[in-house]
């Protein structure tokens, strides 16, 4: 049986892991190389590295850092942040990434999904969606770009469906409303997207209690959960998380 994945996320800025609330008020959370190795050794199922300054494409220091993190990470490793061209994915894959997440560039130029899937395979093309609830309609979310700073009028669910057709192999779905609040994932959003596509959906934004993880993996129909604060600040270890999920009937890889 396929297990549900627990994925710590490293938001990286100036070579440090940071974490904010609703994408703002960043706090230091440690060294990316050390944290990456720690999570890989402790039984995390994957690792995500997001350059939140979105300079991956132009910044050699960041690519070098990806390389150093990857050298000690023996679980699938996704890298994203500022990717604008398929060539940049090639460079990151050669630096040790296994998958790349694309966000703003795919909204501006959806063909990048198709081109990347053709060249590197769908399995390494992750579409990241930062979604925000629309204020006037319930059950609707709009895509935001540029690290949440720029709203669009694109419907998040329609965008997910289109991205699957274009060749995305996975969706990393972040609720802008929930991110960093530790108040729980947006279950309704996650479920709506997971039911609309056949590719895996990673729920992100709002991880707080372990119940919130159980909820989004069950009711929310997510294939995987991304979390940052709860792991970086030691609220829960990977093992505690997996033990809890197992006790609550969620299939996980034993640590």
């Amino acid at each position, binding site marked *: *049986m396929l297990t549900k994945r627990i994925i710590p996320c490293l938001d990286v800025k100036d070579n440090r892991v940071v974490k904010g609330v609703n994408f703002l008020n960043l706090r230091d959370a440690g060294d990316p190389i050390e944290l990456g190795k720690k999570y890989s050794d402790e039984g995390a*199922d994957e690792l995500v590295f997001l350059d939140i300054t979105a300079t991956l494409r132009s910044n050699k220091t960041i690519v070098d850092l990806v390389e150093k993190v990857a050298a*000690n990470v*023996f679980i699938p490793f996704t890298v994203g942040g500022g990717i604008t061209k398929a060539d940049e994915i090639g460079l990151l894959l050669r630096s040790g990434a296994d998958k790349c997440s694309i966000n703003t560039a795919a909204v501006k130029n959806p063909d990048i999904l198709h081109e990347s899937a053709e*060249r590197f395979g769908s*399995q390494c093309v992750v579409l990241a969606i930062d979604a925000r609830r629309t204020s006037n309609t319930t059950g609707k979310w709009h895509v935001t770009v540029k690290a949440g700073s720029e709203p669009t009028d694109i419907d998040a669910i329609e965008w997910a469906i289109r991205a699957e057709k274009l060749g995305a192999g996975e969706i990393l779905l972040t609720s802008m409303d929930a991110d960093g609040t530790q108040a729980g994932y947006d279950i309704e959003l996650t479920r709506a997207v997971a039911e609309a596509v056949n590719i895996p959906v990673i729920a992100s934004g709002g991880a707080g209690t372990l119940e919130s993880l159980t909820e989004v993996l069950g009711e929310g129909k997510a294939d995987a959960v991304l979390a940052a604060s709860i792991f970086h600040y030691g609220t829960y270890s990977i093992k505690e998380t997996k033990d809890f999920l197992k006790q609550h009937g969620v299939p996980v890889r034993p640590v």
Partner: protein
Amino acid sequence: MLVIIDYGVGNVRSVTNAFRYISSDVTVSCDPAVIAAADGLILPGVGASGYAMEKVSPIAGVITEQALTGKPLLGICVGFQLLFETSYEMGTHKCLGLIKGKVVPIPTDRGLTIPHMGWNYVKFAEGMRLFDGLGDGKHFAFANSFCAEVGDPDAKFASADYGISITAGVEKGNIFGCQFHPEKSAADGLQVLKNFVNICREESK
């Protein structure tokens, strides 16, 4: 020395990182002379198997020839799929044919999430050298939309239950393969690679 065959399909970096981590004597090459001189060969690859077969074709002869002389060969993911006779990914493609069988799409009409992405329990067949020391089965990391149907009475295989049975590993004499990514399957995956290194050492004595 082991050679990771770099034929320009996707990412050999993760495979190289993992082999270097378990401190084995490993090099990356697509030079036929280097391949011929190796104690063991690793054929990685990601993406579509048809495209991979096209890219590997200039050195397919030397790989097959070396495998048939008894040199250990480990195919990983798409490299594993290339070990079989035919792949039906985006057309019909003749593969290396070292193991009888074919590569077919995971059926889309069963409500399964595709790609088959993540950690799936794999049950080993008895006596598979590749999984030595790992008990009856372990979890490994997958990322595939196609899967192999083994039709070779001389091959042993390991399988993963994903609603349908997915061939997860295969072994026939000196030919080995994993559909999953051992280089990305934490300690148990590294053990699989160590087992392959040990097999290569024994065979080269």
